[in-house]
């Protein structure tokens, strides 16, 4: 408990997490408002239902990737990781506490992005298909909580492995925003690989753009994909903690 408390103080005693959080929420919610104000939807043709309100969540997710990676790499950058390990010599404990204290705000940001985007769209351009009726609808909106939380865990794991802000941020963003998309361009094997990529899995859990024909024959269902995404994040985190235990601080 005391370790969690220490990590909480660390997180909240600098201003950058607040700015990141603000950015992570304001960017997608603000742009969603812009979309809502321009959208001209005929009743009945909004086939995508509530998904249309969540299309910009990836912006918030990208900011969370950066924020979570920074929370560990900045400790290496400023040498405070040594104080951390000096106070809590069990590195796994210290790093798990940090993971918890980073993942929880990420989940709150996810909630704000998911429900905020949905609410702002509803407020500006309300139509019946936007109601949260089915389990699928709820997954698309409330599911952001879990996706943002797991995204933060994955980013922390990568940060622990790379320990260097520029490298970790570049790897995470290029991977999430470019690699996963480009792999689909590889003929024959591309699709099969893509079906097992973590952020692809996260999007399938949320059910974004589910009506595209390439996405019909998927190996897992939405909850299976969430479990898979969580398992990948957990594996990366475990690798990060192991590497931190083995290397000199």
């Amino acid at each position: 408990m005391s370790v969690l408390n220490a990590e909480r103080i660390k997180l909240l005693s600098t201003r950058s997490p607040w700015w990141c959080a603000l950015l992570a929420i304001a960017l997608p919610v603000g742009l969603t408002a812009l979309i809502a104000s321009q959208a001209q939807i005929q009743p009945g043709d909004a086939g995508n239902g509530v998904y249309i309100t969540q299309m910009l969540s990836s912006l918030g997710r990208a900011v969370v990737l950066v924020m979570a990676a920074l929370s560990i790499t900045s400790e290496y950058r400023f040498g405070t990781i040594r104080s951390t390990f000096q106070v809590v010599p069990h590195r796994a404990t210290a790093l798990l506490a940090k993971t918890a204290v980073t993942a929880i705000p990420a989940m709150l940001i996810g909630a704000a992005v998911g429900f905020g985007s949905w609410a702002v769209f509803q407020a500006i351009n309300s139509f019946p298909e936007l109601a949260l009726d089915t389990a699928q609808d709820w997954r698309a909106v409330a599911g952001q909580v879990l996706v943002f939380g797991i995204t933060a865990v994955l980013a922390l794991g990568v940060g622990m492995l790379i320990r260097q802000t520029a490298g970790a941020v570049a790897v995470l963003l290029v991977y999430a925003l470019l690699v996963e998309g480009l792999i689909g361009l590889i003929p024959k094997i591309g699709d099969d690989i893509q079906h097992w990529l973590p952020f692809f899995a996260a999007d399938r859990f949320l059910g974004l753009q589910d009506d595209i024909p390439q996405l019909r024959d998927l190996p897992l269902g939405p909850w299976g994909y969430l479990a898979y995404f969580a398992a990948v994040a957990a594996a990366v985190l475990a690798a990060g903690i192991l590497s931190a235990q083995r290397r000199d601080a």
Partner: protein
Amino acid sequence: MTTLLATERIKLFTTRSPWWSAFLALGLTIGFAALVGLNHNGGPLTVEHSQFGMQFGLMVVSVMAALAITTEYRFATIRATFQAVPKRTSVLVAKTAVVAVLAAVIGEVAAFGSWVTTYAIDGGPEMAITTGADWRMVAGVGLVYAIASVISVAVGTLVRQSAGAISILLIWPLLVENLVQLIPGIGDDIHDWMPFTVAGRFLNGTGPDAPMGPWASLAYFAGVAAVLLVASLVVANKRDA
């Protein structure tokens, strides 16, 4: 200016970052071209297939170029730099020039390397570089990398901070430029003027709806870079180092 260029060249190449970047950019683009070539079936391979991975190199070069300036702020060597040469504009222009030349070289090697690789795997007459469009698609990569690196140095100078600069430089072209299309009505019009989208049209052809031809597209991309560069120079001159 030659001294300044030499200084910046030494600074860049005495760290490992340019070597890593070149290695990564070439490995990713050429490797991806090989993957595409090896798995291709149905229809002959075209020049376009060989350049599918050019964005990998573009992102690596963007990060490398931003780091070239942000690490100077990070390690406070920028003070030593401005102490040695108080004319900040000259220093930054020299740095931009050196980085841009490196980016251009990486771009050309990546593009022709990718083309040669795909050609070697399964080259047919469709793989030949014959038309102006073919040449732009391959030889144009170096130009795009160079201009993108100028944007990166400018953004790096404005932000002065690695994490921020890299986030902006990656999230902008990879995410923001695509997401604006989602804005109903005006989205596509905005998308048409997004710098990296326009640069892509220089390489891959403009299509019927594009507002400009390929060379005008390149000029527009270069114009955006020039505006950012000037803005960064003005700011760097005003601010304390």
